């Protein structure tokens, strides 16, 4: 990175650190923080979408759909989320490959499960074995995002279901009295009003989501945990220009501080948002704001 980095052995501590912290592999490490942010930016809205679908299904008038919604919420919440992560990444991959196999290779004779192997025809492989490296990485990341969305969608569904129930009954009855259909009531009355009730739960969920991002490591994505382990491990002079003992503890300390800062900032932003939404509302929080101002 810097011009004086050509011979690290001769440098004093400050310059050595400056060179060490800007090696190519460290830049990858910093880029991985971006991966975490991208994951959050994509996962949060998609989890919300899954949650909305789950919550709408759970209060549907059609019984099988209702059972599906309630079952989705209950099962994901009753089982450790990490088990779902490990399960969905393989299950989704195999499911997609199986679907492609059935459509692309109708004449394939051999069974797909052969002992400990899962064999589909070469055209059905995902991604194709001829695809460039970035497609493989992108596919892995996409599977991870979908897995996160499914698992946290269930949590979001639980929150949104509660918020939909919290919309005052009188509002819905009034809508019915005006002759609105069930669907119209839902779209025009329930959905616009539920957000105030959902905000505390969704804020909590956002924090849970932030704290779940290191699990990307278990899904095989080269994330910050992966790089912290790689870079922190002891390096000998033979294999590295920057030999050092085992520093993994310090790398994980840095990650710890990153997450503490991230959750702290989120907390402050959510508190502001909650104040703004409660402003002028006929709720206890709105009343407290009014009194504080007077």
């Amino acid at each position, binding site marked *: 990175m810097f011009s004086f980095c050509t011979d690290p052995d001769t440098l004093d501590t400050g310059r050595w650190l400056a060179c060490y912290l800007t090696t190519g592999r460290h830049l990858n490490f910093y880029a991985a923080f971006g991966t975490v942010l991208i994951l959050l930016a994509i996962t949060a809205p998609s989890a919300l979408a899954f949650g909305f679908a789950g919550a709408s299904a759970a209060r549907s008038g059609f019984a099988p759909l209702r059972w599906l919604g309630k079952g989705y919420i209950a099962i994901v919440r*009753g089982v450790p989320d990490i*088990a779902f992560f490990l*399960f969905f990444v393989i299950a989704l991959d195999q499911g997609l490959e199986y679907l492609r196999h059935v459509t692309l290779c109708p004449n394939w004779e051999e069974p797909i*499960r052969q002992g*400990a192997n899962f064999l589909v025809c070469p055209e059905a492989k995902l991604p194709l074995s001829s695809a460039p490296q970035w497609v493989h990485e992108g596919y892995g990341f996409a599977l991870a995002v979908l897995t996160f969305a499914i698992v946290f969608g269930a949590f979001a569904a*639980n929150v949104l279901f*509660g918020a939909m129930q919290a919309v005052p009954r009188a509002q819905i009855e009034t809508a019915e009295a005006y002759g609105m259909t069930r669907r119209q009531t839902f779209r025009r009355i329930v959905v616009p009003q539920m957000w105030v009730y959902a905000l505390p739960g969704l804020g909590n969920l956002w924090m849970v989501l932030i704290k779940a991002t290191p699990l990307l490591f*278990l899904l095989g994505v080269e994330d910050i945990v992966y790089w912290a382990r790689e870079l922190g491990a002891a390096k000998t002079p033979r294999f590295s220009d920057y030999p050092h003992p085992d520093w993994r503890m310090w790398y*994980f300390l840095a990650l*710890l501080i990153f997450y503490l800062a991230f959750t702290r900032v989120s907390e402050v932003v959510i508190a502001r948002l909650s104040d703004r939404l409660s402003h002028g509302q006929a709720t206890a929080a709105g009343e407290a704001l009014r009194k504080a101002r007077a």
Partner: protein
Amino acid sequence: MEGCLQTIADYALRSVGIGERLLPRTDFTLCQQFTLIGSGLIWNVYFGVLALLSGFVLATVVALGKAATNPLLRKPAEWFIFVFRGSPLFIQFFFAYFLFLSLKQVVPWTEPLSTAALGALVVLFLNTAAYSGEIFYGALRSVPKGDTEAAAAYGIEGWTRFRRITWPTMLRLAWPAYTNEAIFLFHATTLVFFTGFPARQQQGDALYYAQYFADKTFNPFVPYPILAGYFILLTLVIIGIMGAVNRHLNRHLPQAAGKRPRLLPQIMR
């Protein structure tokens, strides 16, 4: 059936090092998967129960610390809760493991801390103490003023008042949220063997064995549902026990019987 009984005899205590030394390598039967994953559950229960019991004591101390007016008591409690609630448990495990490894170099007798059985337990203990401490702190602030005033009127003061009035009321108010925390703690125990803490001689927890089978058979549709079934049973047991405690705490109230901790409360970790 004969074969299955033999499998249970061989592997039921495999996770604690009793029984067959080698894990099954080929021709996995359903019986083997049920037995080994169930065997791993011993570790989840070990971590969960010990962390919950020890964490309960520290959580009470932390809650009192956070509610104290003296900043020398309040600040450490606030920071403790902030650090453990604000960062992912996954990273805490990693950091603690490497911290214990470095510590071992300097102070040799701390070596047991770098094993899962003790080191991971310490992390879970501190983590659950922080989460429960926050729950207890919230409950402590909601103890009705009338209760403590009535106690004062009867001449019950100081430590006696805390032990007989404030603390039981705090527990009663906190219990539904605390039940939720207990469930999530048991779920969190599945992280241990994915974070550096070594599974010595392949003695791991339920998820460790489930992943072993999923990797070997490349079929996630058998081991993970088995694991899920075990955990749903475990969750029901926790709800049953915590519900019994809740009834005991509320036994003096008129409609005590009707109020059980709900299966899906809103508050979460």
